[in-house]
């Protein structure tokens, strides 16, 4: 399986800016057999790292 594309998706979540990272591969995902199934991971913005 090869990663074919990584796309950051940024959005205003109200209480903070939220970053999703969309990872696409050249193979169907492990679940449901859908082609190019994206796997998404969240991450806080650097300036929010101090929050509880």
């Amino acid at each position: 399986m090869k990663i074919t594309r990584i796309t950051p998706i940024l959005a205003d979540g109200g209480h903070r800016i939220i970053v999703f990272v969309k990872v696409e591969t050249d193979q169907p995902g492990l679940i449901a057999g859908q082609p190019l199934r994206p796997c998404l991971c969240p991450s806080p913005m650097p300036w929010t790292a101090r929050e509880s």
Partner: protein
Amino acid sequence: MPVPITNALDGPRKLNAAEAGLRAVREAVGDEMDILLDMHGRLTPQMAIQYARRFEPYAPLFIEEPCQAENPAVMARVASATTIPVATGERLFLRWGFREILETGGASLLQPDPCHCGGIGETRKIATMAETYYAGLAPHNPYGPLATAVSVHIDLASPNFVIQEMIDPDVAPEAQALVIEPLPVVNGHILPPTRPGLGVEVNEAECARRPPDFSIEKAGGMVMRHYYATHEDGGIADS
């Protein structure tokens, strides 16, 4: 935050005020509701012990980061000085960051953040390490509904899971809208996912409609409103 901005050493005024606040909360909610106290690492160990002993009669479920966690041996002294369980972990990374906390007895409830402690797999390993020390798991999660779904998967696979942090959907409906069908919350309990994968899907169209605003008025202002704190002399305090 159950304690006011506190100096390295302080007298009884702030201790009395904090105790009065917690007493009022306990009297208001009774014994059926758990109270969780987050010191957010803003106290010195000396003051943390004094606050904790004042809080003991009101039986909070735990105190979170009574002092900074970088020196686990010192946090262990705080933990051993109070009957209230100590929680920590949001500023620790990978299993290596949690090893010393467990070995020294610095905390009995670990709060790894799956978003920055190494991901789902690493958080599960941290949870298993905690299990061997009879410590609990309460993943740190002040983010959005996708991070909540990630945490819930870990929780469901961890026998020592205790409680899950999340942003109240009613407080931050904007974040809820960023995924399609976020996990429902019923009577204070998050229902487990029933769909494939993480169980929630990012709503990319909604994300496109809500571009982030990095201007100082918006993003910077948000930081200042929610997270900025100073000591009485103007020095910057941990928020």
